[in-house]
């Protein structure tokens, strides 16, 4: 189990692109983000009472007006740090300059189906497990790429179905996007659909009602963000310099509620591996890293490799078992599991990793929640655990969770409702909790029993 350094804040910014701009009181937000290319819109937004952030492409930064009325700039596309620093200096004290992470997708649940290839609508199959398009893994990767920097995500809306009309996101779609960023520790530049912007500007009752829910979620996730906690992860994923090459493997670990931390090969040392229970190695290690990995297994850890060609130190002995897809070696008090192929089917791989962790080694267990992602965090003092839960379906769902550790109380809160003390059952080294109606997002605050081991530390 490892607790990563958490980000410092979590915030949702609203992108506005249409005229007229509603007065600040109508939206009840302090700031809007407008396209840098539309100076008139920025002026309108300021006149309506907002602090104005500009969104600009990296190659258009020179055109950003210098002066005191730009609250900040969000940069699209790759840009070097020196240019960002120069822009910060030019804009003056207090101005925010950040780069946008545009690699994500609007989070939603969908299924894989053929729309109209050769005029065919559907694929008959066994019951398809819903696919959760989510950004949990991306956020974790982005946090590791830039330690100490809160990722600022943005992504376009993509309609789920191809029917005529109905392409606009529903209020619940916005709520899931906000909840996801708030649950996994990212900031979000939220694009509002132009039709929704126009309805808001007109003050139409339905739009105002939807906006009220969105605003409520923004407040909820800003008030107690995971930013103040430390993510808990019992799995380390080791890759070479370019982790996105193995994105789908990590995406499916996240999808199956297997929280992970990310290490590059050059970060692999005995100390760096010590907090973990299971280490997945996806790129070949050099001799010093292989020795550290071997030592990790000897101390009782589970080492998993996929498609790596040895010889490696852990392969010295005879295999303890062989299966079609893997060879397992006993290594000291631990083991090494060598999958013959690289990660070709990330879903199967994630399920195999899950099975290699004994139930008591899992940081979170969810029953009846195939559409739910949870993320555990530890308070810096170790006296409390925060667990964020997010149901991507928009439908109320009874969900059962099992969280390792001993606790004296569990508080549960969701947007728009008062926090409630939740009954739970302490069974062995775990707390079992039932959420009767998880609709979109919620979070649990769990007070650790005095003298109890921190969550997850009973792993090996």
């Amino acid at each position, binding site marked *: 189990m490892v607790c990563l350094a958490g980000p410092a804040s979590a915030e949702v910014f609203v992108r506005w692109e249409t005229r007229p701009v509603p007065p600040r009181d109508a939206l009840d937000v302090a700031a809007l983000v407008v396209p840098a290319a539309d100076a008139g819109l920025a002026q309108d937004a300021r006149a309506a009472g907002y602090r104005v952030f500009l969104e600009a492409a990296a190659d258009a930064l020179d055109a950003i007006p210098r002066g005191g009325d730009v609250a900040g700039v969000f940069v699209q596309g790759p840009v070097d740090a020196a240019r960002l620093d120069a822009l910060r200096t030019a804009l003056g004290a207090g101005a925010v300059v950040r780069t946008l992470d545009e690699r994500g997708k609007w989070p939603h649940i969908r299924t894989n189906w053929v729309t109209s290839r050769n*005029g065919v609508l559907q694929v008959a199959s*066994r019951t398809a497990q819903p696919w959760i398009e989510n950004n949990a893994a991306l956020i974790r990767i982005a946090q590791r790429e830039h330690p100490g920097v809160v990722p600022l995500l943005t992504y376009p809306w993509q309609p789920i179905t191809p029917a005529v009309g109905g392409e606009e996101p529903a209020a619940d779609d916005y709520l899931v996007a906000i909840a996801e960023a708030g649950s996994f520790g990212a900031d979000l530049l939220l694009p509002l659909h132009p039709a929704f912007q126009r309805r808001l500007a007109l003050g139409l009752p339905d739009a105002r009602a939807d906006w009220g829910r969105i605003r409520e979620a923004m407040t909820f996730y800003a008030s107690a963000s995971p930013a103040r906690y430390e993510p808990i992860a019992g799995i380390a994923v080791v890759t070479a310099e370019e982790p996105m090459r193995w994105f789908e493997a990590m995406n499916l670990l996240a999808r199956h509620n297997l929280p992970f931390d990310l290490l590059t090969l050059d970060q692999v040392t005995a100390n760096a591996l010590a907090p973990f229970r299971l280490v997945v190695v996806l790129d070949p290690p050099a001799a010093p890293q292989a020795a550290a990995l071997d030592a990790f297994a000897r101390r009782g850890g589970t080492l998993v490799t996929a498609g790596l060609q040895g010889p490696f130190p852990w392969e010295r002995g005879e295999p303890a078992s062989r299966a079609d897809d893997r060879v397992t070696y006993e290594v000291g008090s631990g083991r090494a599991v060598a999958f013959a192929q690289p990660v070709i089917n990330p879903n199967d791989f994630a399920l195999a990793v899950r099975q290699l962790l004994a139930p008591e080694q899992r940081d979170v267990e969810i029953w009846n929640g*195939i559409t739910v992602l949870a993320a555990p965090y530890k308070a810096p003092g170790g006296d409390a655990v925060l667990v964020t839960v997010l149901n991507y379906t928009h439908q109320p769902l009874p969900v059962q969770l099992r969280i390792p550790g001993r606790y004296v109380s569990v508080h549960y809160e969701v947007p728009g409702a008062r926090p409630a003390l939740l009954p739970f059952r302490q069974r062995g080294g775990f707390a079992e909790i039932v959420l009767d109606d998880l609709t979109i997002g919620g979070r649990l605050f769990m007070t650790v029993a005095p003298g109890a081991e921190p969550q997850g530390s009973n792993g090996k």
Partner: protein
Amino acid sequence: MRSADGVRHASCAVLLLLAAAPLWGSPALEPPTVHVQRYAMGTMVDLFAYHESREVAEAAVERAWAEFVRLDDVLSSFKPASDLSRLNREGASGFVTVDPSLYDLVARSIDYARLTGGRFDVTVGPLLRVWKAAWAAGHPPAAADVERAKACVGSDLVELQPPNRIRFTSPCVEIELGGVGKGYAVDRALDVLRAHGVERALVNAGGSSIAAAGAPPGRDGWPVRLGGSIDGRDVLLLREASMSTSEQRPRPFAAAGGGVGEILDPRSGAPVPGAAGVTVVASDGAVAEALTKALLMTAPADAERMLARFGHDVSAIWMGPDGAPAAVHNGPRLALAGPR
């Protein structure tokens, strides 16, 4: 070639019963007037509707969706407040009054158990629990645990009292409708669409249960791609029919040999061995779904008598381990299309 038992092997070139308008070369499918995709019953459900009035189509789809969700709330064993969960909790203590749709589906399922010789049985719940726990633990269950669970399985342990009361005659009986509920629900949703004026509609629950009314404009049926081709054709044209697909793909235990898939044979108490799949097309979605399970335990050559008990309009396609069709039982609703 058609074997004596009426089962045709797909590798042999035989003309199919229904001739469909050529799919290939036909214009792109006209976008449906309304299409929603939402989550229910553990999967994503698509509702497609064509109608000259968008308002009519939207209203019908919303009502059909509401019926689907209502059935999920009634038939789910995962929802503690569902009628089924209540029946499972209280059924051994006496008759429980349940929603008419739950009564209807349990009554039908008892019939299906009889007609399939016990291959399909909704009282398989205790066995499922044993095998799920075994999978989570990484090794096969103890034989004693399986035998204990088997003693709780059998549709004869369920007693019905019309019009809507059910009880169990053993304390450990538990009904699980996951093997038939989606097939039932897609038909009911389609009924609602028809009742609200939509005659061209399709309801798809996760690809495994699909029900179709009418056909898209300019088409002879709703084109549904199969996992492989039959006589070079891999598209089924679904019209006024339901289809269901089940597959068994055993996954190995982490800590032991053998493996387990999600479909159990209630008679043996063990998972159906090997990898295979079955697609059934019928006029009734619940029949189609129940039969896919029963046929996974039945060699094509042995299936004819069982299928005959369900009437003349059932078609079945058996898929091999590679997902390609291996054998076909023709019925009047099996209309295939695609390049030959």
